[in-house]
């Protein structure tokens, strides 16, 4: 497939640059299809980048949702293999506190084992040795194969591989309408936010992987998907309090998972229904912050005195089953809709529901359906072939092979980009100078991200390199990186506006938790940018 086509003709168009869309684009490209991936913002801007970053063992679902639990553990093992540079093998604990029912533990372990999840009951004292920050009052502990996964890196790696296999990726392209011919979807009409032009692309199949925004894409096709936006708020702490994932051994509830990730750790989540109109503008409320803190302290008492970096919220794309428009019977599993059989709309499918952990499986299902429709007979290989960055050697070997004396920024680069780090120029002292001290991001890494990883602005850059994600939340690195973007994109005006938007975007996550050191940091930022620099936010994209 893919031969003798015009530039704007593809085998398959995938709408949505979250992990599901990225995974589907990779899978389709690996099976030889000519792929177009379209995203209206940047990659991983929706629920993909707004969750725990937990490499679920599935244990959390073992009691309540056996099917999800089994999917999770299988995908967990696959990701450890194919996405090593995105995964941190931390292990996980399910702790029982005096206020919890210890009998639940037995049921929990039994369910885990039934789902194929290793679950070892360990002595509370041993649990505290394994994770000293866990609540010392715990009365029971179970060890499970949880881990941490970086969703930005994972999405980026899928996109890199899709592109290596011929896929075209268009970010900042928004679907305006679907091109129809009778009851068949022929392609998409998109608005390019960068050039402000409208373009048309054609393919026999369009895949709707828009997450919560997929409801709207389906509407454009004339189909109806009943989505129930469920907001989940999380808090990010300034450093790693824990090195092992800590869960509460009880029925899933608010704020009962604490996950370490890179330089920070995360507590979450809350769960509340939100009106559809609000999904583009999620604000974390003071009540949500208080609840997360109150429950989080029970997992690790140290959280009470740990600096909170920011608060954020994502929207889970929960789907009501077709026979229940009221939404009471909501599926948390994978939902693959063939709109031809369901609604009589040809050339259009939706892949939704599911979770970060099962993205690969969702992509596999969606791609299987695409291939069936296109009469392509090629089996899925994504459970075997490592993602770019995760091939071959381990991180230390790559680092040693690439640089004679790897320093902190070199190690950070390998951690973030795996064996693709070799493509990042860090040989000269200028390239090795740090843009972002908190996260050890160098000039070379920033330049690589701008040139190779579809970076349009500072927020994109943050998702690829962690610039501005550390304790200072972009205090000085933002201005440095803005200078580099101005140079790379040859547009100073845009870079300056972008800097101001970026600072506001950081603030959005800070003000809900703005006291103590976080408020001190914010005051400093205010003095630097509004005071010393005299910037006023003029031209920044967000304005309230």
């Amino acid at each position, binding site marked *: 497939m893919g031969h003798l086509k015009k530039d704007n003709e593809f085998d398959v168009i995938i709408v949505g640059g979250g992990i599901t869309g990225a995974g589907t684009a990779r899978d389709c490209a690996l099976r030889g299809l000519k792929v177009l991936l379209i995203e209206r913002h940047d990659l991983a801007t929706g629920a993909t980048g707004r969750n725990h970053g937990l490499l679920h063992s599935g244990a959390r679902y073992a009691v309540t949702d056996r099917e999800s639990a089994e999917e999770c553990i299988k995908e967990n093992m696959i990701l450890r293999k194919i996405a090593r540079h995105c995964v941190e093998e931390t292990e996980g604990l399910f702790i029982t506190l005096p206020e919890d029912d210890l009998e639940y533990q037995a049921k929990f372990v039994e369910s885990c084992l039934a789902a194929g999840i290793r679950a070892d009951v360990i002595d509370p004292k041993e649990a505290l040795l394994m994770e000293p920050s866990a609540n010392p009052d715990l009365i029971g502990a179970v060890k499970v194969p949880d881990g941490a996964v970086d969703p930005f890196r994972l999405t980026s790696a899928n996109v890199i591989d899709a592109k290596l296999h011929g896929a075209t990726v268009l970010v900042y392209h928004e679907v305006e309408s679907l091109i129809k011919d009778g009851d068949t979807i022929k392609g998409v009409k998109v608005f390019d936010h960068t050039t402000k032009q409208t373009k048309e692309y054609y393919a026999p199949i369009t895949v709707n992987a828009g997450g919560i925004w997929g409801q709207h894409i389906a509407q454009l096709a004339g189909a109806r998907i009943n989505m129930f936006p469920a907001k989940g708020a999380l808090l990010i702490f300034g450093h790693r309090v824990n090195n092992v994932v800590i869960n509460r051994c009880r029925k899933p509830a608010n704020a009962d998972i604490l996950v370490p990730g890179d330089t920070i750790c995360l507590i979450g989540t809350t769960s509340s229904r939100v009106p559809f109109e609000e999904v583009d503008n999620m604000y974390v409320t003071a009540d949500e912050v208080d609840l997360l803190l109150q429950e989080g302290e029970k997992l690790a008492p140290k959280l009470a005195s740990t600096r909170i970096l920011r608060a954020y919220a994502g929207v889970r794309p929960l789907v009501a089953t077709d026979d229940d428009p009221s939404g009471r019977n909501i599926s948390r599993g994978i939902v693959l809709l063939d709109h031809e059989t369901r609604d009589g709309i040809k050339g259009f499918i939706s892949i939704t529901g599911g979770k970060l952990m099962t993205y690969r499986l969702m992509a596999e299902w969606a791609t299987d359906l695409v291939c069936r429709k296109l009469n392509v007979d090629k089996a899925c290989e994504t459970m075997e072939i490592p993602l770019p960055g995760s091939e071959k050697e381990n991180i230390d070997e790559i680092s040693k092979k690439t640089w004679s004396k790897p320093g902190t920024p070199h190690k950070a680069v390998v951690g973030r980009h795996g064996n693709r780090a070799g493509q990042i120029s860090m040989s000269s002292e200028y390239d090795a*100078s740090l*843009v972002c001290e908190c996260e050890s991001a160098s*000039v070379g890494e920033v330049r690589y991200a701008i040139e190779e990883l579809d970076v349009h602005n500072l927020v994109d850059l943050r998702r690829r390199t962690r610039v501005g994600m550390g304790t200072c939340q972009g205090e000085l690195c933002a201005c440095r990186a803005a200078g580099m973007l101005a140079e790379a994109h040859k547009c100073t005006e845009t870079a300056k506006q972008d800097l101001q938007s970026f600072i*506001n975007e950081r603030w959005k996550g800070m003000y809900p938790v703005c006291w103590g050191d976080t408020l001190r940091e914010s005051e400093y930022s205010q003095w*630097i940018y509004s005071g*010393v620099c005299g910037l006023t*936010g003029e031209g920044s994209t*967000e304005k*309230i």
Partner: protein
Amino acid sequence: MKFDTIIIGGGLAGLICGIRLQKAGKKCAIVSAGQSAMHFSSGSFELLGRLPDGTETERPLEVLKQLPKEHPYSVIGEETVAEYAAMVPMFLEECGIKVSGSADKNSWRISPTGERKPAWLTLEEFVSLPDKDSKIGNKALIVNILGYLDFNTKFLADSFEKQGTECRIVSLKLDEMERLRKNPSEMRSTNIARVMDREEVWSKAIDQINSMIKDEDAIVLPAVFGLKDSAIIEKIRTRLGVKTYFIATMPPSVPGIRAQMRLKAEFEKCGGYFFLGDTVKGADYNEDGSIRSIETANFGNIRMYADDFVLASGSFFSKGLTATPFGIIEPVFGIDVKAEDSRDNWFDRYFWNKQNYISFGAVAKNGLHASKDGKTVWNLFLAGSIIGGYNALYEGCGGGTAIITALYAADEILKK
């Protein structure tokens, strides 16, 4: 230990207050935790850039009467503010800090990103422009040091070009800087300044610039020269021959640190005691609620006694104020603070709007006295950004309020 006055805070306000008192014969001690806002100075002190309602002010002294009554300028009184404002340049000059500018009319400074901001007094290497859109020249050579990322040449060129100045950006490559670059986090202003302070290095830099000048009539340089001594600024200007503009960099600020070190040296030269790296842990009080002594972390149970105390401990960033999820407190003495109760009223969701929390601070009674539980503390005076009731950032009056409240508090103590 017994002093006449103990000042808590070694920033602009604390030092100015200490120098004033020490020169008048008082025995003073300053307890300082470390860095101050001067370390991220813009290069200028502002008197008043705009009123709380947003009206821009061209002549600050003429609008002082329009300020609300809790504003520190109002507490001091407009005529007194004007008197102090007039004497500050001489006061600073006597401390070895040369400034330009006047309180009668705001001048304009050029910010690190090329913006123009109202200024009152500007440190010597910077140029204060008479008008907001004054042109720096017809053609400018913008010079950076290779690898130094805190000087945004692109942003500067963009803003100069808008005013009709043609810009050319060049980089200096100096072998002496290579050693700094070996450590990736070393290319920061103060580290560069330390190397640049050596005559053979700055001389070489000037030679390189001279060889690069074509027909430019303005040279733009980052303010990373003269960390210890500002004398090289004039030498550089003379050697370049072309009008030279030093522009403030992103923090740390070399001129700001130099000025702070100058003030500290002046205070010590006058016989003052500067206890660096110490923090106040507690206080005990006389029966009338006035302060008898304080206890610090370094001196432990050797208490420090004084007749009068000045609290110049700064705002949140300097830990003069502490924010908890439940409210704002002043951590040293627990004095009265003016702040909104609900966190929802602390912030605006848009970063660039006026932020209420910046105006939170200690309640200043007449004479800049602090109050505790509603009762005036007769021997505790407030100076600088610890004082509440005004938004120094929004109004553009941080430097002015720091200097003037410090001088006023000192004179109130001397009057007793």
